[in-house]
């Protein structure tokens, strides 16, 4: 039994040393990685829009992206996070302001023209449009 306990404590020591080594290796890799992480930086494209939406309760968020794709959902959810307390209504365009996050700017412009809206701002493929008849 004592031998087994000794083996257990040797295992405990080895695993903790290995974990610490890996944690530091991960930290060094993170320090050296200056590229932005796609999944974690999608929301930055929406920064600044919160100033346009001051006192606006809800805005539309139109996308033609496949929402089964995690990146598309992540983009919508980070946009929502960035623009709180304004609520983003996914794929509803009856509001005064509508954000277009489409597979290409051409697709977004076609949708904006089709809906009779006016494009106001563009940033990294995201287009903000004004709906004169919006609520």
């Amino acid at each position, binding site marked *: 039994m004592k031998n087994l306990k000794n083996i*257990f404590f040797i*295992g405990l020591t080895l695993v*903790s040393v290995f974990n*610490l080594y890996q*944690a530091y290796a991960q930290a060094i890799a993170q320090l050296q990685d200056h590229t932005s992480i796609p*999944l974690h930086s999608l929301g930055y494209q929406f920064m600044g829009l919160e100033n346009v939406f001051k006192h606006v309760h809800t805005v539309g968020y139109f996308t033609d992206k496949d929402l089964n794709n995690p990146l598309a959902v992540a983009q919508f959810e980070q946009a929502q*996070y960035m623009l709180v*307390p304004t609520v983003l209504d996914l794929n509803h365009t009856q509001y005064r302001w509508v954000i277009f996050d489409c597979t290409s700017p051409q697709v977004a412009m076609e949708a904006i023209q089709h809906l009779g809206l006016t494009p106001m701002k563009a940033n990294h493929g995201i287009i903000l449009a004004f709906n004169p008849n919006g609520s």
Partner: protein
Amino acid sequence: MIYFLGILISFAAGFLLIRLLTDGRLNFILHILLALALGLGINGTAAFYTHILLNQPNRFIPIGLVLFLITYLFFLNNKNISFPKFSFTQAHGWGLLTLGVLTIPLAVSGLHYPLGGWDAWSCWSLKAKFIFLGQENWKDMLDPGLWRSNTHYPLLWPLINVWFWDLGGHFDQTVPMLNSIIFALLTAGILLFGLLELTGMLLPSLFAAVIVIALPFGVTLYTSQYSDSLLGLYLLSAFICLLLAEKNKLPKLKILSMVFLGLMSFTKNEGLIVSGIAVLLILWHERSHKKELKNLVLAFAIALLPTIIFTLFMAPKNEAFINGLTSTDKPTDWSRLMIILVYPWFEFISGKWNCFWLLVAGGILLSGKKLWQSTLGVIGFSLILYLGVVMAYYDVNTFFEISWWLSTTLSRILFALVPTIALWIGVALL
């Protein structure tokens, strides 16, 4: 700078409350660590009663409430407010050095993911921003359109962030990031110094804390700003207090244990389940101490109150739930059950855990029946029953495809239990 003032206020509230319960007889370092964990929970509770229950956007009220509590506790403590006798030993030095070593990877990871992980921006920090920036319109976060953000989930972590933003007067993304690091370090410290106090063994206590916190997968989850880490911290704190109450003959620490379990119920729905199970087992274990039972129930009820109010009167229905036992469209079946029974074994041997579960299996075999007796038995049966309920829920709720659901959530459920499992086996083995 303001953030550290908030930490100081939180610490003061927790410190005085624990001092009132223990009369300064608790190990000083553990006293400090548990005080901060408790104080942060008090902040969140104060923010709940003001922002949520009374719908008060005024940012000074939650701060004032905590300061009032500190003043009140100070006067209650005034007979003996001197610091307890404490001799700093080499073991304490090694413990603090280990915490310092663990801080670096946590801080780097926190800075690398300033917005946290997916559930941080889609759930926990999102709710915090709605409460703080939405002011009296905070209820927008319960909008059915935001069903992806788990609108029915409890609010303790978001409200702790809100309390700090109240103090600073503005939204600051560094607050959830710093809080995630603080929660990880508190978990490490409470586990390390708790094991040291309970067993007197320095090296295994240091290794246990390192294994739990330095696991790279754990570092990522701790800095993802998920409520699972808060759940894990309070579960660990509750059981440490329970074990210390027995060892140091400090029965009032059991009251603190119940407070931690009550706070834990407001971290996640899973926290409510495990707190319910643990409290029932503790009360059964303490059934011969009839005089104490009343105080234990009262302490738990007070800490549980925000959960009850939110769950019964505010939380919207869970949109991601289909009862597979009654549904004809998505009924539960044998294949689902088989996946649920088999998947955890693949999770246990997954490389991301770096043999942690192998060590757990070895520890369980070496500890034998000691793990299932007395207070350790309460911990063991709490863990087993909780995992049983979780597995049953996976089977009954057929809203999600089970393989995907298990692959995205089971590791987090286990992650929250890891510190408590390390404590449970550590105390039995050392």
